[in-house]
Each structure stands twice: as structure tokens, then as C-alpha cells.
């Protein structure tokens, strides 16, 4: 039937579609001519990592849901699918991807979500993009279309290549399909605005974090702590009563996730500091906004990259610049030994170095 299906189809294995076949052909041609590829969906994550040159491999023709069974809590979707399309299909069944990936004007694709690993405000409480990955179909550095993981919740057969793909920025292969765990949307929610100083907010969050409270969003901006509560009716209303504060419009979380808050309009470069839970309030060289209960701190700053990354390291975390052209290493450099294992893994899975090479670090 198709050239990729050199092996007989396994039970339950679906036929290769024409759009998938086209991606395989392009990868094979690139391998044959040693042409570097630039894998791209909606190109909404260009602000992350480094710009690269390469022949464009556009995933967006390869779109649509492959299978979705709400009672199994699993969806399998082609990576060129716009995220909004996937989320709408889940929403119809009262379900969602709890890790809350941003959709960026509706342009973001499922593949970009996976490659960047970019999750939303709910991340600390429900998990990251990779936490919801169950399986992938990948075009490898040999030009083969292979399957890893699956459509079941638990699967420890072989190495976990599927979760490895999350946040790998396409360096290890072209993912054509991903299976993800989905969950029912929460029954109830409340959105609160507490006018308290930042230090007090962090102290409160440390205290609440040790209690079974239905917090799924905690952001400090404009001198107030914004909280989101989600869960059953009873737990949400009792927690809301206890925490007090003013009512907050639910759209705040979308604006935060989609980077539409006035904070993000500041002209200075945007930095993201990823810090341990319970990191105290520190003076950052610029204007900052705290998300993820303080674990993710956004910083608008003109300070040199080295200074910001050094500061993040001293706090036990790391920093990345999300404004293009500011620094040659927008992602925090890796320790030498870890960098060597990155090189070795890349060399094994992409021996010709055609997949998004240089997208994260020079020479990787």
C-alpha cells in the first residue's frame, strides 16, 4: 500500500495516511541529501530556544483526531492539528488537557505543544505536558515510522521514548502522532483576588500547599495574589470562603497563559526563571510576575544573560530568555557531563543531524 509500511501491519495499527507518508518522504529525501530540516507547525514558539536555518518541514497538513474514546480518557491526535481543534473536541465531551497548553491566537499545534513542553498555569498541581503523554508515532533518523508507548495508562515495556519527545524541540525525530491522557473538566471553580504583599502571598502558598486544597492557579501580579480553585462544589466553596479576597474574572488565567497581560507588553527582554517550590521573594533586576505559586517567575529585564542565569542557578533553578536575539544561549547551558550525554543521545537517534539541530544549543 505505502512505502513506509514495509512491515506487515500489527493488530490495531492504523494505516499510514497520505499526509504522514509525505512527511516520511520528506525526511527520507533530507536524509539522502543530508539537508537539515526545520520542523514547524504554527511557528508560535519561535521565541523559545534559538533560530535555525533549514528546509521547512511543515506538519500542518497532517491534522485531525485519530481516535478519541472519552471513557478510556485517551485521545490520539496528529501533530499538525491546531490545539484549538483538539481542545474543542475534548470540550464537547466535558474533558480537557489539564496541563493547559497555550493556543496562541489559535495557531499553536499539537506538535508544537509537545516539542516545546509549554504548559499553562495549572502545571504545578496537575502535571506537565510530558506527564500526559502516553505514546507517540515518530519518524526516526533512519527515516522509519515507528511506534512507542501506546494508548493505555500504564506501559513500561521498553524505554520511554514518548515522554522523552516532550520538550525535545524536535531534535530527536519528527513526531507524527501523540496519544495523551485527558481528564474530565472540574465540576466547580472559583477565582479570587487577594490584596496582600508578595512575601505574605508566598508564605500563604507554602502553608496552603501542605493542605488538601483545590488550588490550580496561583499568580502574583500588580500587588495581589490571584488564585484559582477547581474541584467539587463543596471543596471549592469552602476553600473560597476560607481564603477570602475579591472575585476575579476567570479570563485572567487565559490572559496570563496566552501572554496578553499588560506585563508582557513591556519592551524589555522576557526571561523565565524556573525555581524550586518555596523559593523566597528575591530582588530580580527588572519587573517581575510570579506564576506557578512562585515556581515560575517572569522577568522583564535588560540585565545581561549571564547575570540572570547565574542568579537562577544560585536559587537552585534555571533561566531562559524568551525574547529572540538577546543572547546566543537563551536556554541555560548544561553542565559539561550532561551536555555530553545530550550529544551522544542526539548522535544515536539523529546520526545525520537533520532534525532541528541547533534549536536548543549550539552544536546539539
Amino acid at each position, binding site marked *: 500500500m505505502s512505502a513506509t509500511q514495509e512491515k506487515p501491519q500489527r493488530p490495531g495499527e492504523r494505516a499510514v495516511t497520505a499526509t504522514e507518508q509525505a512527511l516520511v518522504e520528506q525526511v527520507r529525501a533530507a536524509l539522502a541529501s543530508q539537508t537539515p530540516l526545520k520542523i514547524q507547525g504554527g511557528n508560535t514558539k519561535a521565541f523559545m530556544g534559538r533560530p535555525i536555518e533549514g528546509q521547512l518541514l511543515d506538519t500542518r497538513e497532517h491534522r485531525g483526531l485519530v481516535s478519541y474514546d472519552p*471513557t*478510556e480518557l485517551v485521545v490520539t491526535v496528529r501533530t499538525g492539528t491546531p490545539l484549538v481543534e483538539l481542545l474543542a473536541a475534548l470540550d464537547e465531551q466535558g474533558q480537557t488537557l489539564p496541563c493547559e497548553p497555550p493556543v496562541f491566537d489559535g495557531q499553536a499545534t499539537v506538535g508544537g505543544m509537545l516539542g516545546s513542553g509549554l504548559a499553562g498555569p495549572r502545571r504545578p498541581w496537575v502535571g506537565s505536558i510530558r506527564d500526559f503523554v502516553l505514546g507517540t508515532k515518530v519518524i526516526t533518523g533512519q527515516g522509519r515510522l515507528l*511506534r512507542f508507548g501506546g494508548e493505555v495508562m500504564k506501559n513500561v515495556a521498553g*524505554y520511554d521514548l514518548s515522554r522523552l519527545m516532550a*520538550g525535545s524541540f524536535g531534535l530527536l525525530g519528527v513526531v507524527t502522532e501523540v496519544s495523551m491522557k485527558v481528564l474530565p473538566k472540574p465540576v466547580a471553580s472559583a477565582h479570587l483576588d487577594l490584596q496582600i504583599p508578595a512575601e505574605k502571598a508566598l508564605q500563604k502558598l507554602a502553608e496552603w500547599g501542605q493542605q488538601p486544597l483545590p488550588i490550580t492557579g496561583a499568580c502574583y501580579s500588580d500587588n495581589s495574589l490571584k488564585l484559582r480553585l477547581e474541584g467539587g462544589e463543596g471543596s471549592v466553596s469552602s476553600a473560597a470562603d476560607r481564603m477570602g479576597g475579591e472575585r476575579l474574572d476567570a479570563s485572567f488565567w487565559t490572559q496570563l497563559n496566552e501572554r496578553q497581560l499588560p506585563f508582557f507588553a513591556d519592551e524589555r527582554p522576557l526571561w523565565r526563571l*524556573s525555581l524550586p517550590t518555596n523559593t523566597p521573594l528575591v530582588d530580580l533586576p527588572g519587573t517581575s510576575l510570579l506564576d506557578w505559586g512562585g515556581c515560575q517567575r517572569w522577568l522583564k529585564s535588560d540585565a545581561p544573560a549571564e547575570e540572570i542565569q547565574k542568579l537562577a542557578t544560585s536559587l537552585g533553578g534555571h533561566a531562559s530568555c524568551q525574547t529572540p536575539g538577546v543572547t546566543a544561549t537563551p536556554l541555560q547551558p548544561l553542565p559539561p557531563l550532561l551536555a555530553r550525554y545530550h550529544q551522544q543521545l542526539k548522535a544515536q537517534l539523529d546520526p545525520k543531524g537533520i532534525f532541528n539541530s541547533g534549536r536548543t*544549543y549550539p552544536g546539539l
Partner: protein
Amino acid sequence: MNLLYDEQLDGELPAVDREALIDDLKQALPELEVLHKREDLQPYECDGLSAYRTLPMLVVLPETLEQVQTLMKICNQRKVPVVARGAGTGLSGGALPLEKGVLLVMARFNRILEVNPEGRFARVQPGVRNLAISEAAAPHKLYYAPDPSSQIACSIGGNVAENAGGVHCLKYGLTVHNVMKVEIITVEGERMTLGADSLDAPGFDLLALFMGSEGMLGIVVEVTVKLLPAPQVAKVLMASFDDVGKAGQAVGDIISAGIIPGGLEMMDNLAIRAAEDFIHAGYPVDAEAILLCELDGVEADVHAECDRVKAVLEKSGATEISLAKDDEERKRFWAGRKNAFPAVGRISPDYYCMDGTIPRRELPGVLQGIADLSKEYGLRVANVFHAGDGNMHPLILFDANQEGELERAEALGGKILELCVAVGGSITGEHGVGREKINQMCSQFNDDELETFHAVKAAFDPDRLLNPGKNIPTLHRCAEFGAMHIHNGELPFPELERF
């Protein structure tokens, strides 16, 4: 096909000068305890999969990181295979020793280094028992969520190696979802950190790759786990059914109603009777199947959910529904389930536990398939099932003293796993491949996929020194395995790819 390491099928192992290695170790690490006498080695010849035993060449019991590093440097230099072992409770032979290899026992790394309630994490050494973490966190009303049934004995290092699960996975995730950071020693004896104290780390997600990698990519020497606030209240409903298919349907109905129970377990009649006989949990011995559904969280939510689940179960045709009236009864309901394996052990001289996963919708067909295979092989099978996440634990009852029964049990087990693969599932949900399911890996993955796994291994361990022969079969073994199937003329799923 024998599951012990076979150099013809699993790859040649380097020849090791045992005496010279012992001398080297004594010289470089005079404090290190090295066992090399036969009688000292014997307790280490198997893990939880006790049907398979191999006497290791040496056993080492290091107590410091530096010892592990030096040991790895020496073994790497001399090209000596190293098999790491934690508590040795694994059920798939992941820590099965090698005649030509060192068994690296991490049991003495048993200290809890830090419990940090404000940061909601604990930093522990790999030999710390799973339950000990929750016990240490309990004064802060926090706990470590993954709870494999062996949690009183199994160690966190082994949990990382197998990506261990438990009965609360659907809601709280596997080990991979609850570990933030590991410190490892590479095959070259270097120390490396994967993951971070923050919620993400720059670079590839090597932490995820290491989870479930069965000690084949590095030696875990420290683990930082996430701690969660203990749920305020937990309630358990027990529902009886006169048909296993109806029970399976009820599981889907609960989830369709938008409820994610903390635990959702199913047992069939044989398992119910065995457990009841052993634990007196109050199970209905006439039921064809029972469901145990635990709802946990904040009190107000749990009450509301209990009512909703009850209504769903009634509609799904449950013949009886009871709510554990107090915490004692709740624990008794769970004790029956958690002791299902030993309970089955009482009604049969031996049993063999399988670990396949399936999409839940396939449950009725798979249970029928298991019943048919059980008849065909003349061996009873009891079914215990993490119903919420599709992880089956069929227990095959046999008597190893009866000529040929072990082989029949193994063959039946292999067929059950192939059936799981055939409906889109996996050969292992939480016990790991180890040596036990090394042949069934050939059913689940094709040669190209297996080669990709070998490429990953080569990135971390080019000389195949870390736990060689586990987890990923050689293409040679798969070719032999496929050929054997065809020779016997008993290919039950001819559409399955084998080469």
C-alpha cells in the same frame, strides 16, 4: 525458550578475570564489603521472580557514593557487567544476576536525607523503602503517592528502575509523575543530576527516560520525590456483580460520569474466594466480580461523589453495593485486594503473576480469551485488575512439582500477554520486562523499534555493561522466538508481527 542469560541469543559477555577483579576491588576499596563465597552469594541469586536463579560472580554492598563511583570505574575499565539491585522484590527478574557480572546491592543506601514540608519534597537514598517515605512525611500530613502492593518492602531505587505503579495510579500517577530529580552514577563512574528541584530542567527530559529503564542507563544513587497533602477523607464502595462483563462496563460508566476515583479495582470470583478465605474482608463469595471504588479528597466532595458513584453502579446492574462504614472496614476491604497474591498462593502450590495492560473497553473480550486459554492449558487463572487504568494481573495457578506445569504456566502467560498486545495494550504495566517478558517484547515491538531502544542504550552504555540482557531483546532472540512459535504450529494471532 530458557529465560536465563544465553550468550548465543542475548549477546556475548566479556570474559572476566574474577580473581584479578577481587584483587582490584580490595586494593582500591578496602572498606567495601565484597561477597564471593558460594554460600554468601546464594541469597542474591534471584529477585521476586524466584523461578529463575543465577549465582552472581560477586556481590558488592557499598555504603558510600565514592565506593559506587570507584566500583563503576573499575568495572568499566575491566569491562565487567554490573547488575544493580534494590530490595529485590521485583517480579520480572530485573535484578536477576549474571554469572559473569557483579551484583551491585544498593540496600545500604537506606537513609532519608531530607523531608521538606514547605517545599513538599523528600530527598532519599535509593534503598529507602517506598512506605518509609510516606511514614516519614506523615507527621506533616503529607505522603508519597505511588503505592505498589509491595510497598512495605520495595525500595524507591527499584521503583524508579521499574516506574512502579500501584492502586492509585489513575488519579495520582506512576513513579514518573512523582519523582522530581535523580542523582545517578554513569557507567564511567561520573555523577550526574537528572531533573531538578524546580518543576523542569533545561535540555532533554532524561529523567523521564530513566524512569522504568531497569538499571540499564545508569545507577540511581539519590531520589527526590514529590510529597502530596494527605486526602482529608477516603471512602470505599464495594459493588458485586453477577457477570464480569457488567463490572467492566460499570468502570467505564463511572469514568464517563466525570469521576476519577482514587482507586478502582476489580476481582473475579476465584480471586474473591481466595482473598475472603485468607483475609475475611467481608467479600461476597458468590459474586462473579467485585469492584472496589475508593473516593478521596475533601469531605464535602467525597460525599457527593459517593452518591453519584452509587447511582452509576445501580444503573450498571450491581447486585449489591456497600459503603465501608468506617476506616477499619475500609482497610479490611483493601486488605483483601492487597493480599490477593498471597491469598491465591494459599489455594495453589505456585502461581505466576502477569501484568498486561489493555484499553478498558477490551476487558470482556480479553477475560473471555483468558478463560479460553485457561481451559486450553488446563490451568486455573484468577483475575485481579487495576480496573481504572486497564492494568490486569491474571494469576496463573500451577504446581511446579508436577512435570511440565511451570512450562505450561509460562506458555499460558506468554499467550495472555500476546492477547493484550493484540487488542492494543502492553505486555507490562508496572512490573517491568526484566528477563520475564523478554520474549514478549518481540510481539510488542518490531525490529526497527527494538533497534531504536538499543541506540538509546548505546548513548549511555556503549559496551552494554549495565544490566545487559534485560528489558530489550536482541534481534537474534526475537528471530529465534518467532521461529519457535511457527515450528510449534500454534500461532494464535497470525496477524501479529514477529520479525
